[in-house]
């Protein structure tokens, strides 16, 4: 495993950084939030990102993708994470698209992936339920066999981009108790399916989410993904891949929050000197730097390991998620503290990082959850 960017990756990072500088200032978060934008991102920018080939990065070339890996996607997501860009990489590319890639038949892949990779169709994954926290196997939504297809009944929450997705991959249980690892299936539900009610949810990080009600939603046979009842391993893999993408985004966010704070320490003066000259702040800035560097190593290793099918990959994903969660919340907190009063104002942008840090921390399990998983995967 080489923990160094290739020349191509460097180039990709530069393109992404330039694009972000030109088109995607941090202020977009505020504009979209204050407009109470129903979909919460810019379809126009999304189209441009697709044209640049980013949306297709992890999909095979024969399906309209770029045939690259998570490592490349991570490079782009890190740059976008710097400005907390809300475009649906996580939901459509990694979660929805990932589920079709890993669980779908060739036909299903052919039907969906080229459209997803081109940014023309948007997918997402609806897995979380009230009280399920990060546990993927806690699924109370039921799927009853009906003819060749299924009938879904249940509730899903905080479905990322769930009001704008054209179709949702929904986890539902064909058998077993609510937290039985066996018995889970994946079902593609189209947005206009009768009985599907999607309601926009408003989160602290202002990312678009939806609460879904599935009231006897019918899923045709060709929209069942993989073998109903045996989906948990695939689901875990999909979420692991998405977690790597999320960690890259978090790395971008924590790096930017750190950079902005560092810049402030150099210009804000109190007692006749820049506040960055106080050792109490200096040392903490140095510690944040250490956290950022450790986070970067973990994210690079997790992406490379997933790309290479390394046997340690899952542990490295947990390593990255635990580290990035703690580091992002720490830096988000410190950023506000070191900005003083102005850091507490909504008018200043620095608070957006802490809000996103919390939401990202709580997505796919927080640091404690991933330390627990590390221990389990390590056999203790």
């Amino acid at each position: 495993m080489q923990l160094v960017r290739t020349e191509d990756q460097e180039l990709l990072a530069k393109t992404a950084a330039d694009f972000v500088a030109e088109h995607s200032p941090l202020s977009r978060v505020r504009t979209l939030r204050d407009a109470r934008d129903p979909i919460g991102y810019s379809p126009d920018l999304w189209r441009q990102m697709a044209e640049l080939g980013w949306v297709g990065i992890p999909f095979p070339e024969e399906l309209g993708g770029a045939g690259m890996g998570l490592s490349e996607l991570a490079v782009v997501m890190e740059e976008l994470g710097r400005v907390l860009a809300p475009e649906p990489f996580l939901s459509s590319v990694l979660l929805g698209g990932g589920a079709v890639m890993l669980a779908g038949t060739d036909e299903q892949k052919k039907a969906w992936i080229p459209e997803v990779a081109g940014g023309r169709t948007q997918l997402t994954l609806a897995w979380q339920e009230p009280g399920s926290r990060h546990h993927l196997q806690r699924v109370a939504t039921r799927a009853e066999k009906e003819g060749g297809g299924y009938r879904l009944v249940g509730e899903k929450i905080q479905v990322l981009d769930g009001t704008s997705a054209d179709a949702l991959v929904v986890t539902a249980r064909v058998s077993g108790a609510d937290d039985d690892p066996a018995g889970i299936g994946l079902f593609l539900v189209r947005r206009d399916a009768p009985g599907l009610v999607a309601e926009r949810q408003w989160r602290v990080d202002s990312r678009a989410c939806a609460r879904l009600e599935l009231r006897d939603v019918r899923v045709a046979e060709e929209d069942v993904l993989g073998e109903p009842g045996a989906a948990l391993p695939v689901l875990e893999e999909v979420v692991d891949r998405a977690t790597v993408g999320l960690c890259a985004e978090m790395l971008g966010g924590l790096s930017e929050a750190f950079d902005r704070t560092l810049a402030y320490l150099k210009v804000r003066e109190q007692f006749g000197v820049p506040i960055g000259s106080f050792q109490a702040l200096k040392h903490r800035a140095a510690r944040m730097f250490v956290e950022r560097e450790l986070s970067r190593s973990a994210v690079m290793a997790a992406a490379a390991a997933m790309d290479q099918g390394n046997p340690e990959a899952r542990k490295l994903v947990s390593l990255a998620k635990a580290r990035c969660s703690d580091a992002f919340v720490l830096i988000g907190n410190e950023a506000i503290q070191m900005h003083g009063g102005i850091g507490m104002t909504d008018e200043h942008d620095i608070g957006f990082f802490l809000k996103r840090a919390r939401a990202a921390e709580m997505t796919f399990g927080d640091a404690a959850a991933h330390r627990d998983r590390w221990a389990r995967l390590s056999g203790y």
Partner: protein
Amino acid sequence: MSEAAASRDLPDLDTFREEIRRFLEAEAPPSLRGARGGELDGIWGGRKERWDDKPDRKRWLDVMAARGYTAPTWPREYGGAGLTPAHAKVLHQEMRRLELPPPLIGFGLTMIGPTLLQFGTEEQKRKHLPRIVRGEIRWCQGYSEPDAGSDLASLKTRAVREGDHFIVTGQKVWTSYGDQADWMFLLVRTNPEAKKQEGITFLLMDMDSPGVAVRPIKLISGSSPFCETYLDRVRVPVSNVVGRIDGGWTVAKALLGHERSMIADAFGTGGGRRARNEAETLAGFARRYLGEREGRLADPVLRDRLAQNEMDARVFELTLQRTRDAARAGQAPGPEASLFKLYGTELNQRRQELMVSIAGPAALGWEGPGFSEEELALTRNWLRSRGNTIEGGTSEIQLNIIAKRVLGLPD
């Protein structure tokens, strides 16, 4: 006033308790019993207070203020009840027993009132204290400026004397509730030539004076409790100087001591909230989100953090109590207000973070649907708590004060 002098015409504590019980039974509006919320969730009073939708709160304030019980230890001649701390404690215990909310809160009672008692002229005390007691005037604090936060003494707002008045020009910032307040206590520079601490004067200013403009600023938690305050040639009578002209720094520091104990007290009782029943305790909250296994919280990591938080809160309460007991026993208080402010605010932040961890994804709500009222409040309280280690002097400044003044470490 010494305790003995104050207690001369007070009944002994048992008799007093009986009296208070009878009084509260008769006068406390039944609708408010059991209504004791967070220490800060109260009535701030002032000219802008809206009473229409809370007549009982108004009645409660009036009956308490009539006896001086909104400021129980203040002398009677200034509207207080002249109680000894021991009698005041009985009053609070009896209010707590009925779970009654404080009739009045605010910077008048906790900050400027005690400061005026110590430094105010007779005229200032007679004018301002009774109106604070009755909740007629709400106060705000004009200390911070854009370039003078931690380094408060570098403040630039100018006051130039013209006969019987000061003409005040400058800008204050982060003025909590500036838009709701009737009066402001503020620090101004009266002598730009002197060493920075020695050219500052402490003033009382009517917010209705011509030249005062207030702009609310939203916090990251979404509410708008603080403001920018612009002062453009505002005329303030010289008789509104507290302490000496150019001697305001001493007054300012004393008030900061009161402010820091107020903040510490607010967090000294379980993050500002006292549970009324099991479900309202932190453990009850955790049980709802995490469930139990064999009578223990199902998540051992969060259980450990919860126990740690409760134990930290308990030892903090004990330390607050130890200081109060020492004060009652006539021992002079040390510089521990800095310790309290530091520890109390960080404790509250840890508590809020713990609650977020316990609620997990349910703690991410900003507005409905899909989040309960309690969950939405949780998100915003957590965000608001980030300001606790900034307001009233940052944690870094508290640590500097402890290191220098308490520990005698060199600069």
